């Protein structure tokens, strides 16, 4: 398997607060990897570091063999990494279709963009119905779909999902995770998903990492993790 993302011994901090203290992880092509851990364990910081929003003070981040730990966020998107940020961060004042167009901002292949737009609509038909509405008028679940759709519009090879279930009703969460699983399969897309709800994440992931206070405490296949006592105790009950 080809390694899409390599994260090697990365340190990063916000001011004087250390967020990551030597995190290492890998994501391979077409693989869904779950990133678990308590609040403040460094999950979101890991994603922010990959996206270039947070600069590591030490360590190496590689995407498809190229170092990206000093690369500007917009350049990283262009290289093929999209993030669905925590809290969705849609452009509430803009329409649905404007949001989706912004997703494809870095692309110059107009015709392919149009096809991708149609594909996003097939994954999320509700977005097609509401394409002229202001994003702020959508429900939470619909906004999450929009955020994912927007990320897909960049035609990424690695998708970063930050807490897609946050603040949503369980039934919606399940629907969204099903779609994520489907997308991963159909597009051959590598996905790194951060999630509080470990059972959901491990349901679609092949591998999982458990972070504790800025370091990797555990790394195993999803099946093994599901069986692991400590994970069970901490995140599944």
């Amino acid at each position: 398997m080809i390694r899409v993302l390599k994260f090697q011994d990365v340190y990063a901090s916000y001011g004087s607060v250390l967020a990551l203290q030597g995190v290492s992880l890998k994501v391979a092509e077409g693989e869904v990897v779950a990133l678990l851990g308590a609040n403040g364990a460094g999950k979101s910081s890991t994603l922010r570091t990959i996206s270039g929003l947070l600069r590591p003070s030490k360590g190496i981040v590689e995407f498809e063999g190229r170092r990206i730990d000093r690369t500007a966020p917009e350049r990283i998107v262009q290289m093929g990494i999209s993030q669905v940020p925590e809290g969705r961060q849609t452009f509430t004042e803009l329409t649905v279709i404007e949001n989706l167009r912004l997703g494809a901002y870095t692309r110059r292949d107009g015709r392919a963009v149009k096809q991708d737009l149609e594909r996003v609509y097939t994954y999320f038909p509700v977005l097609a119905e509401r394409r002229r509405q202001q994003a702020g008028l959508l429900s939470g679940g619909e906004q999450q779909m929009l955020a994912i759709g927007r990320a897909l519009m960049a035609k990424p090879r690695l998708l970063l999902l930050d807490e897609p279930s946050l603040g949503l009703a369980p039934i919606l969460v399940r629907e969204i995770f099903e779609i994520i699983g489907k997308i991963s399969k159909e597009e051959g897309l590598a996905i790194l998903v951060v999630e509080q709800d470990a059972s959901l994440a491990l349901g679609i992931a092949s591998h999982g990492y458990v972070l504790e206070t800025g370091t990797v405490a555990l790394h195993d296949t999803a099946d093994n993790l599901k069986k692991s006592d400590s994970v069970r105790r901490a995140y599944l009950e």
Partner: protein
Amino acid sequence: MIGWVLLGLFLLFFPYLHTWPAASSFLDSVDNTTGLGIGGTFGVFQMTTLGVWLVILTGLNILTGYSGQISLGHGAFVAAGAYITAILLDQTATPLVVAILAAAIGTAAIGFAIGIPSLRLTGPYLAIATLAIIVSMPQFLKWDKVSEWTKGSTGIDLPSADVPTFLGLDRFMDDSQWLYYSVMVPAVIMTVLAWNLTRSRIGRAFIALRDSEIGAQQMGVNVSLYKTLAFAISALYAGVGGGLFAYTQDFVSPDSFGIFQSIEFLVVIVIGGLASTLGSVLAAIFFVYQDGVVLRLAELIGFPERLRWAFFGVGLILIMIVAPNGVAGLVQRLKTLRPATVLEMLRQARPSAMISRLRNHPLAERLGLGRRDEHDPGDEES
């Protein structure tokens, strides 16, 4: 503790300092080198005006710093207070203190009246709406219908303040010293009251409001009530300040309260430090003394006279970059310094660290000097 006692003693004896030769020559030499203006009777007058602005700026800081509402027209409240006081003193035999109290109540009422419709406005919309008030104020003061009281564009010229003969006070102090105490006493009281207020439930409600209206609502804060209250309290301060202004200047006119002055109020509280009593004090100090100091600095550097305002502008921008939370924020930061942290900072201030900090500046990155390029494989980026 000892600091507060010293400050109190300093304020108490300041007007007599210049009558003591040793202190006087020290103050004068400070003035000569810095351009401050604290020596002699002029120094007393400057300190007196400092008291006036302190009251006004403390009030504005309650509105803008604590409750987060931006007013660009605060001068209009000050004008209201000044005019109420001046009209009462000019046309009736009202004692000064009563006139100022009337100004306080009247201005607070105006603040309340403007605060209610302003509830719906936020950010720049509120700022411009308040700007509209200060822009139209001179025209109101000059209007035929009110000029009987306001004396139109001529303004109201009051007799200058004399030390009263009561209790033989005039044997202890001259007019300027009398003026100093009659301003500084209410100024200190009002500052202390503001300091207490901001630590009370009301103050916490204001801060909650500023940070998130929805959050404040969830905490059970009555948003409309507190927003209007902030307006009224800050207007009350402006009213008292305006009253003291009329008393110390013994003259008010429609020209006394320019648009730029109101904007400058905002500038100095941002520079002093928002949501901080120390910030208000620093703001008042800055407001009163900056002219002299900037002038002296520009002189020392040999800046052309016509460029002095630019010098001031550059100063503003630099302060905002160096001290984003105002000088009070900077002081706060310095206070937390322990020897170890100082050492650490000194260690970090090695040339290489300084250079890397410079290279982190957006401008450096723009110019292609930034460190971003060091590892960036994407050299082809346009």
